[in-house]
C-alpha cells in the first residue's frame, strides 16, 4: 500500500511534533518546571509515528514510561499532556499521574505505565475484549528491549498466540535498558527471534526508517483485523537522550550518541526522502516546524496558566462507588 501526499506530510508533521514536544519537555525539566522524572523518546519518532499512523482512532494502545511519542502519534491533546507533566488540574489525569501515567481512553490509549512490561497483559485483555465484543479493532502494545525480558511478556505473547488475538507486540529496541546495553540483558541478538516460540510472525525493521516501520505496521494491523492473530514487531532504534533527564550516562560514549544523532536521525532521513520525492519543499518543511512550534508554545502557555489542583482533590477519583 502506498501512502498519499497528505498522509506522508501528516506523518512528518507528527514526527516533528514529537521531537519538539520532547525537546521542550527536556528544557522545562531542566528549568525545574516539571516535578519527578521524565523519559524522552527523541530519536525514536519513526517508531511511534510509523506504528500509530497505521491505527484507527478506535484502536487500542498501551505504552510505557517513555510514552510521550506514542500518545502524540495516537492523537493525544498537547495542552492536556503538558498540563499533566506540570501537575496541573487541567492535565489528562488532573495532576494525579504525571509523565509516566497519561492515558486518553477516548482515543483508546489505555495508558502509559510506570511498571516496565506492565502494559502487555492489559493489551492482551483488550485483545480478548475485542474478540468477545466481535469488533475489528486492534491493539498495539509498545515496550522496550529491557521490558522484553520480563515474564509478563512471555505470558502475554503465549495467550495472544493461542487465542489469535488482534495484538501487535511492538518492542522498541533502542539499545539500552536504563544503564544496561541490550546485548548484556537479552539472550538473543534480534528479539523478533522469540516470536517463533509463540507461533506468530516476528519482524525486525530499521526503526529509524518511518516508512519501513509503517509498512511493517500496516501488515501487522491487516493480519490482526483479518482475525489472523498477533504479530511481533521489533523496531531497532536508538535512545538519544539519557534514560531519564539528568542521567549521567556513564554506560556509553558520547561519540556513540553523536554518530546516531548525525547519521541516523529519523526526521532528517524522512525529510530527505520526502524532499527527494518532491513531497516536501524547504518552505513547506519550515512551515511545518513553525506551525508545530506555535502549537506547542500554545500548549505550554495553557499549562502554565492552568491552576494546580486543590489539595483535597487528592481524595477524589479512587473509586466509582466509595
Amino acid at each position, binding site marked *: 500500500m502506498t501512502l498519499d501526499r497528505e498522509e506522508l506530510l501528516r506523518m512528518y508533521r507528527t514526527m516533528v511534533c514529537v521531537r519538539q514536544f520532547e525537546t521542550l519537555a527536556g528544557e522545562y525539566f531542566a528549568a525545574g518546571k516539571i516535578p519527578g522524572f521524565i523519559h524522552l523518546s527523541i530519536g525514536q519518532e519513526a517508531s511511534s509515528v510509523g506504528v500509530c499512523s497505521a491505527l484507527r482512532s478506535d484502536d*487500542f494502545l*498501551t505504552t510505557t514510561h517513555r510514552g510521550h511519542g506514542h500518545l502524540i502519534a495516537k492523537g493525544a491533546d498537547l495542552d492536556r499532556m503538558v498540563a499533566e507533566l506540570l501537575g496541573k488540574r487541567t*492535565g*489528562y*489525569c*488532573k*495532576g*494525579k*499521574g504525571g509523565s509516566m*501515567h*497519561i*492515558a*486518553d*481512553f477516548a482515543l483508546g490509549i*489505555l*495508558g502509559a*505505565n*510506570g*511498571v516496565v512490561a*506492565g502494559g*502487555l*497483559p*492489559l*493489551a*492482551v*485483555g*483488550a*485483545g*480478548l*475484549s*475485542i474478540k*468477545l*465484543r466481535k469488533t475489528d479493532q486492534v491493539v498495539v502494545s509498545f515496550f522496550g528491549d529491557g521490558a522484553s525480558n520480563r*515474564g*509478563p511478556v512471555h*505470558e*502475554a505473547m*503465549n*495467550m495472544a498466540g*493461542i487465542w489469535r488475538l488482534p495484538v501487535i507486540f511492538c518492542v522498541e529496541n533502542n539499545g539500552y535498558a536504563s544503564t544496561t546495553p541490550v546485548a548484556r540483558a537479552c539472550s538473543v541478538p534480534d528479539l523478533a527471534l522469540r516470536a517463533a516460540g509463540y507461533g506468530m510472525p516476528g519482524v525486525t525493521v530499521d526503526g529509524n526508517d518511518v516508512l519501513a516501520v509503517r509498512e511493517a505496521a500496516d501488515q501487522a494491523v491487516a493480519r490482526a483485523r483479518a482475525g489472523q492473530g498477533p504479530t511481533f514487531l521489533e523496531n531497532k532504534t536508538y535512545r538519544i537522550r539519557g534514560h531519564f533527564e539528568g542521567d549521567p550516562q556513564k554506560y556509553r560514549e558520547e561519540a556513540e550518541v553523536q554518530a546516531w544523532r548525525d547519521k541516523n536521525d529519523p526526521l532528517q532521513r524522512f525529510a530527505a526522502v520526502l524532499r527527494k520525492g518532491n513531497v516536501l519543499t524547504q518552505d513547506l518543511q519550515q512551515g511545518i516546524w513553525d506551525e508545530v512550534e506555535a502549537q506547542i508554545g500554545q500548549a505550554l502557555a495553557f499549562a502554565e496558566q492552568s491552576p494546580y489542583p486543590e489539595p483535597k482533590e487528592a481524595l*477524589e*477519583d*479512587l*473509586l*466509582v*462507588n*466509595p
Partner: protein
Amino acid sequence: MAERRLSASAALAEALREEMTRDETIFILGEDLVSHSGIFGQFKGIPENFPGRIIDAPISETCVAGCGVGAGLTGMRPLVDFHFSDFVTCAMDELCNQAAKIRYMFGGQVKLPLVVWCPDGAGLRAAAQHSQSLEAWFVHTPGLKVVVPSEPADVKGLIKSSLRDDDPVMFFQHKRLFAKEGPVPEDADFIIPLGQAAIKRPGADLTFLTYGSGYHLCLQAAEELAAQDILAEIVDLRTLKPLDMETVAHSIQNTNRAVVVHEACVTGGFGAELAARIQVELFDYLDAPVLRVGAKDVPIPFSPVLEDYVLPSVAEVIEAARAVTYR
C-alpha cells in the same frame, strides 16, 4: 414457604448464571474452568449455558489478571478465577499497581469493573502454598474492595453486587465451605450491598467481629458460651473494604466488649486494623481490650495434627470471649 437450601458452590453458580443472563458483558477467565466447571465445580452449569463466556487460560496468573484489567477497561465485566488464592502472589503488580491504581492515576477517566475470585483458606491438608488467607494485603491497598462471605446466601448476594460494581473487587471464598449448605433466596434480584455487615446472632455480653470461615467458629463458640450464660453477638462483616463500621459500633456500644476472629495469621491481619479502629472510635465504650483470634504466625503445615493446631479453634474463641467478659 420452606426455605430453599443450597451449598456455597451452588449459590455462586446460581448467582453467576443469573448475572451472566442479565448482563452479557460478564465473562469468566481462569485455569481449568470448562471441563470440570472449575476445579471445585464452582461454576456448575456455566460452560453448558454460556459457551465462550467461560474461558480456560494457560497457567499464566500474571497475564490472566492483567487480561481481566484490560478487558474491564474496554467494555467487559470480567470475573477472574484465581484457582487458589495463594497464587495472587503471581499477579500482585496487576492487582495492586494496575487494577487498584488505574482509575486514580488517570484522574478518574475510566472505571474498572473486575471481580477477582479467590478460593482461599486452609483445612484441606494442602500445606503452605495452597492454604493461605491473604485478604489483609488488599485491605492495605487503596483502590480495591475486599469481600469475604461466610454463608451461601452471602455468597450469592455479594458476588452479584460485586459483578454489578464498577470498581475492582477481591472476592475471597473459603475452599472448605464450598459444600456447606444454607438457605439462599431464589429471587434473581436478591443482592447484598457491599459494605453492609450483618448481625447474625444477637447477644448482650460481647461482640464477635468476624468473616469467612471465622464466622462458623464464632457460631459454635456462641452456642457453647450461651450454655454458660455468656451471650455473644456475632457481626459478620462480609465486606472488609468498604467496612461497615456503623454496625460494628452499634454492637460494641451495647456489649462493650469485642473479639475479632479470622483465619489469617494474627500478626498484621485484618483483626489488627479493626482492633486499632475500635480502641480509638469506641474507647469510652470498651470495658476490655479488643482481643484477636487467628492462625498462629507460621505457614500452614501439612500434617493434620500440625495444621489443626495452627488454625484458630472454637476453644480459642471461647477463651477469648471469657477473657473479655472476665468470666
